[in-house]
């Protein structure tokens, strides 16, 4: 009985120290989250307007002189995957990879990954998916200038024909409680066209005037557009990661508390049982005298 009590006591102690850690991680995540959320919210209108504008251009475009616009001849897709640097964020990374797998299963040709976030680098290495660059392994310190470097790298490789499509795979920050992994095509612009809509096909396209000409305009705006989208997605993903971690750690703390309560009850029961037993022994001993 005494050894049982000691074991329970030890168990309680270990759960308590784990709870302390999860509690601290939750606090850290929620204080970081506040900043990340503001950043994601300020970047969001730009992100949405940019995407909308490029979709409009893709829908109305009739000039296919620029390689960024015309339907791609090369197979192969490059995924820009934005994940987390660390684990312990609930299903955050797993959901992202599941989405990536589901999306890439239908793609013809080879798949390349441009990982942003340590967990993504680990994932790609484990899966033996070729990586374009491991330069951007950490997602937390990524600034807008890094996004421009990424965009230039993507454009250069795209023009060389290393891959025919570029897709973005990230996590949308919907609210503190929910985040959703998402992918969408970003290059060539032809992929952005909403062609499934039969109404759209019937509609007469409004011609767009490019100044000075389409290929020069696209050469200048496509890297900016990529950088803007990647930056927006990074902001959203970082906020999502922190929100997911806060939630996961919150429930871990709650579970630990529940476990402690249960163990404490067991401990008390064992203690009571040992006292009762002692009394019985003493009484029985007294009767025997």
């Amino acid at each position: 009985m005494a050894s049982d009590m000691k074991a329970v006591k030890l168990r309680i102690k270990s759960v308590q120290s784990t709870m302390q850690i999860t509690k601290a991680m939750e606090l850290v995540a929620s204080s970081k989250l506040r900043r990340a959320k503001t950043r994601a919210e300020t970047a969001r209108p730009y992100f949405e307007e940019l995407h909308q504008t490029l979709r409009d251009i893709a829908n109305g475009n009739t000039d296919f002189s620029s390689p960024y616009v015309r339907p791609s001849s090369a197979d192969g897709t490059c995924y820009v995957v934005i994940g987390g640097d660390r684990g312990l964020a609930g299903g955050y990374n797993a959901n992202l990879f599941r989405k990536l797998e589901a999306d890439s299963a239908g793609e013809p040709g080879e798949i390349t990954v441009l990982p942003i976030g340590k967990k993504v680098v680990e994932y790609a290495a484990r899966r033996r998916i070729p990586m374009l660059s491991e330069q951007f392994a950490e997602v937390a310190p990524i600034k807008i200038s890094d996004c421009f470097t990424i965009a230039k790298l993507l454009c250069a490789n795209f023009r060389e024909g290393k891959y025919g499509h570029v897709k973005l795979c990230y996590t949308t920050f919907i609210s503190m409680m929910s985040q959703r992994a998402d992918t969408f095509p970003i290059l060539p612009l032809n992929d952005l066209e909403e062609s499934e809509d039969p109404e759209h096909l019937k509609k007469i396209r409004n011609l767009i005037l490019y100044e000075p000409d389409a290929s020069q305009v696209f050469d200048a705006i496509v890297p900016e557009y990529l950088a803007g989208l990647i930056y927006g997605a990074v902001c959203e993903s970082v906020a999502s990661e922190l929100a997911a971690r806060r939630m996961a750690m919150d429930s871990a703390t709650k579970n630990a508390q529940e476990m402690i309560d249960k163990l404490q009850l067991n401990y008390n029961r064992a203690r009571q049982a040992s006292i009762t037993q002692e009394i019985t022994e003493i009484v029985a001993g007294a009767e025997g005298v």
Partner: protein
Amino acid sequence: MKTFPLKIGTPDGLLFDGEAERIICRAITGDLAILAGHVNFCTALGMGKAEVVLPDGQRRTAACIGGMLSVMDGTCRVLATTWEWQDDIDIDRAREAKSRAEEILAKGGLTDQEYAAAEAKLRRSLVRIGVSGR
């Protein structure tokens, strides 16, 4: 005069969302102005002074660096890398950036990449100083 919906956005947020009478911008080929009823249009922005004329005739000046300008079905969207209203420009920082960039360029012995970065920095600071008019 007729007005048109104008949106100006940068990664730091949506800086303008409303009606405007006219916008003047520096594109890669030179200055251009957009009025209401413009045909669908798309161009890339250069570095320079931009001016928005509001419906009440008020003019607002800004430093505009890089990005794109598009007009789609009457709505004009300016998505710039940097867009700073005249009053928001940090002139001391711009002057500091200018002198720093000049120092780097004067020192010489740079790689192409470093040279381009320093030159871009100098040009950005010059635009800011020019627009602020101080």
